[in-house]
Structure formats: C-alpha cells, structure tokens
C-alpha cells in the first residue's frame, strides 16, 4: 500500500484548524489567542526538528549515538520528576534517576532484543521510539507515585508515627503509604489498558495503520506497547520509592520530614 505523504502545502493548509480554535477563543474572550499561536509555532518547530534529527540519526545508525540519546532522554525524565517534586535531596534524585534508568533500560531492551529481536540491537528506528514511550510513561508513573508518597508522609504522619512507636522499622511504617502510592501510579496505565481500542485507536497503532501497515500487525505492536508500558511504570515507581522513602527518616528510624 502506498503511503500518502503530507507535503509543505498540506502542512500550511493544516494551520486552518488553528484559525478555527483561535477564532472560537477570540469569540468567547478566553484570552488564549497568544497561547494558541505560541503552541502552534512550537508544534511546528519541535516536530520538524525531531523529524530532521531522527532522519540524521537513522542515516548515521551508530550505537554510541543511539545510547547517548537514550541516556539524554532518561536524564531529562529524571530531572523532570525531581523538578515536579521540588525536592533536590540525594535520595529523591538518586531514586528518580534509578527508577527511570533501570525501568527504561530493562523494558526497552527486553522488547527490542528479546521480543522484536531487532538486528542490529541498536537499530535506531526501533530502539528510540520504543525508548521514548517507555521513558515517558515511567516518568509519569514515578512522578505520580512519588508525589503521592511525599503527600502521604504529611497527611498520614500520625499513622507512620504510630507504627514506629509499635516497633515498626522505617520500611514497615512506610509500607501502607508505598502500597497506596504504587496503586496511584499504576491507575492511569491500568485505565488505558482497560479502554484501549474501545474509546480510540491508540497512537502507535494509528501511526502504523496510516503508514500502510496491516491493522493486525499494528494491533500486535500496540499490545506489546501497552504491556511494556505497564511494566515500565510499575518497575520505575517501585524502584524510586524503595530508594526514596528513607528521605522522610533519619538514621535512627525517626520521622523527620
């Protein structure tokens, strides 16, 4: 099947959509016109730049370049998690970095090397899009669960103190909070898995179908993607929390934060 390419003219015509939303924003005096213009310009600039960069990377096809980009993605994701939490303490930073790196590396290469069996193992066309999805989802799961855990130490301080008073270690006292936060981090992924294909055709499958791939092949890829994302979210969240929960305690197992 021939793929219908989108050219410059079509891209320019597509701005018509933004005139519709911009017109509505003006009509209803939403004060969003400036934001819409900036967002549109950013969409064009960022995605065209990404296309050019990926084109360049696919042509070079160098393992070190692929690994360097993968590492950069993970660093930015960990930095985003810590910024969102607003806590630059060693345990939070190490926990976030370890959560992102361990989950992303494990899941990405489990998919590319074991499941899809990409040849060579660093084939950028496969490794980078999959890594991008894994890192993005792990980042969101980690941020959500970690946020919930830190809030829990404030909101349920009395319960943690009670458990400590009854002989619990810092881990035992934190376990109910960790369980609740883990659950919170997993809920968006579980919801997505429950509704996938019913409410909408997911992004990756849509892209593949539009690019001319058989729907069943697209569906198979999407199944792998959904399962790998749930694994990355779970792994990233729990690794991060296991390392960072001690942030709330001192070395004498006292709740200090």
């Amino acid at each position, binding site marked *: 099947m021939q793929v219908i390419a989108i050219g410059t003219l079509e891209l320019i015509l597509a701005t018509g959509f933004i005139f519709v939303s911009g017109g509505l924003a003006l009509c209803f005096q939403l004060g969003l016109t400036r934001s819409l213009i900036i967002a549109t310009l950013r969409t064009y600039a960022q995605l065209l730049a990404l296309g050019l960069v990926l084109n360049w990377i696919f042509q070079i096809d160098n393992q070190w370049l692929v690994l360097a980009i993968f590492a950069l993605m993970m660093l930015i994701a960990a930095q985003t998690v810590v910024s969102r939490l607003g806590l630059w303490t060693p345990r939070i930073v190490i926990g976030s970095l370890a959560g992102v790196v361990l989950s992303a590396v494990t899941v990405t290469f489990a998919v590319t090397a074991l499941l899809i069996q990409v040849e060579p193992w660093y084939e950028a066309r496969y490794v980078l899009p999959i890594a991008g999805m894994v890192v993005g989802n792990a980042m969101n799961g980690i941020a959500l669960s970690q946020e919930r855990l830190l809030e829990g130490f404030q909101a349920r301080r*009395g*319960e943690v*103190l*009670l*458990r*400590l*008073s*009854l*002989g*619990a*270690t810092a881990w*035992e006292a934190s376990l*109910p909070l960790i369980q609740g936060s883990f659950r919170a981090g997993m809920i968006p992924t579980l919801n997505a898995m429950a509704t996938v294909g019913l409410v909408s055709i997911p992004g990756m499958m849509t892209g593949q179908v539009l690019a001319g791939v058989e729907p069943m092949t697209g569906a198979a890829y999407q199944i792998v993607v959904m399962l790998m994302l749930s694994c990355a979210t779970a792994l990233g969240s729990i690794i991060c929390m296991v390392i960072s929960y001690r942030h709330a305690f*001192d070395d*004498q*197992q*006292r*709740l200090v934060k």
Partner: protein
Amino acid sequence: MTPEAAARGRGLTAHQIALRLSDGQRPSFTLTELNLSLAAGELLLLQGLSGCGKSTLLQALARLIPLQTGGLYLDGLAAAGIPPSSWRTRVSLLHAEPLLVDGSLADNLLLPWRFKALQHLAPPPPEDLREGLAALGLDDAHLQADIRGFSSGQTARITLLRNLLMRPAFLLLDEPAANLDPESAQRVWRLLEAQRSQTGCGMICVSHHRRGLAPDRVLRLRNGRLKEG
C-alpha cells in the same frame, strides 16, 4: 549522675538530656539537662501545664525525637546499642491521640506482630484479647468488627490494650484516660495497676487527673526542667 552510673542502673534512664523543638507547627520550647530514671514496676506521674513539653519528653524517651545532648539507657545499655525498633517494643509509647488503622479490631490489636521487632514473641491468643477487652468494659466488641464503628472513647481503650498486649518493659502513657467517662477511666487505672503488678512494667503516665491513680512519684515539668512533687 554520670553516664557510667546511668549505664550501671537498671530500668529506663535519661541522663542529662536536652532537646529543642521548633518546627513552626508546635510551640517552640527547650528541655534542658534533664535527668530521669524509672525502675521496673514503678509508676511515675508526670504533670505540667499544657504545652510544657510532656508529650515531647515521652516521644524523646521512645526515641522518636532526636536529643541535642545526653543519653538514654535501658537496663544499663546505651540506646546506641539497641536498634530503634527493638527499643520501641520495650519502651512502648501510647500517643495522646488514639489512632487505629484500617481493618478489624483484631487486626489493630495484633498490629505490632506484623513487625519484625516483635516476631520473637508469640501473638496473644483470641481469649487474651477478649479478656483485655472485657477488663476495659468492651465485652461486646467483636474481634472481627470493623474499627470504623467504634467511638473515640472505645478507640482510646483499644489503643491502650494494644500497647499492653506487647508486654513492654516500660510504658509511656500520654493522657490514657483523657476523654473517658469516670467509670472507664477507673477501669483503665485498674488494668494498668494489674499489668504493673503482674509483669513489673514501669510506667510514666502523663495525666492532668490523679483520681484513682496511685503513683510512686510525681514529677512536674516546668520551664524545661523536672521537679519532684
């Protein structure tokens, strides 16, 4: 009292401890050069004005708050030589605000046995739980009942029973009879007295009320210092 003497002594000892609390939420105050010793089986009543630091002192003795200086000793052993979780099963703190966790009454009474520090001790059998509940006037309470159905007064008695079931060497009681009716308060004092005589448990009790309580000593905390009488 030198640290050596404190270390030689039996019981729970605080030697020259000082601590300062100021976290923006609670009033800031300082406890200075405070000495305290509690023998096995002894009942010490700790009194003082609200906000003078009684609860903080109990939390410090349970090693839930760091000391600025001084040391704690348990039967001659410095606190540094005893893991915090193990210390807290032997020096058990009953918080002023009674708190139960989600689950049944039995889940709450046996909560400490979920933690490693108490796993060397067999959990009390259901008949012991029922006996304890009956002694506190909670004869009708079912062990499998959801804790959300209990009143604040019942909750207070359940939390006390949970601490007693751990059979600690020392019990730090922060207002155990607050908000209890006179009859329930009398039951609490009687049960504490029974535990003291049967197990030799030493107790520090913070309470604004003395009726029905027969302490061996009374200490007053004022301006960060302890005074007898």
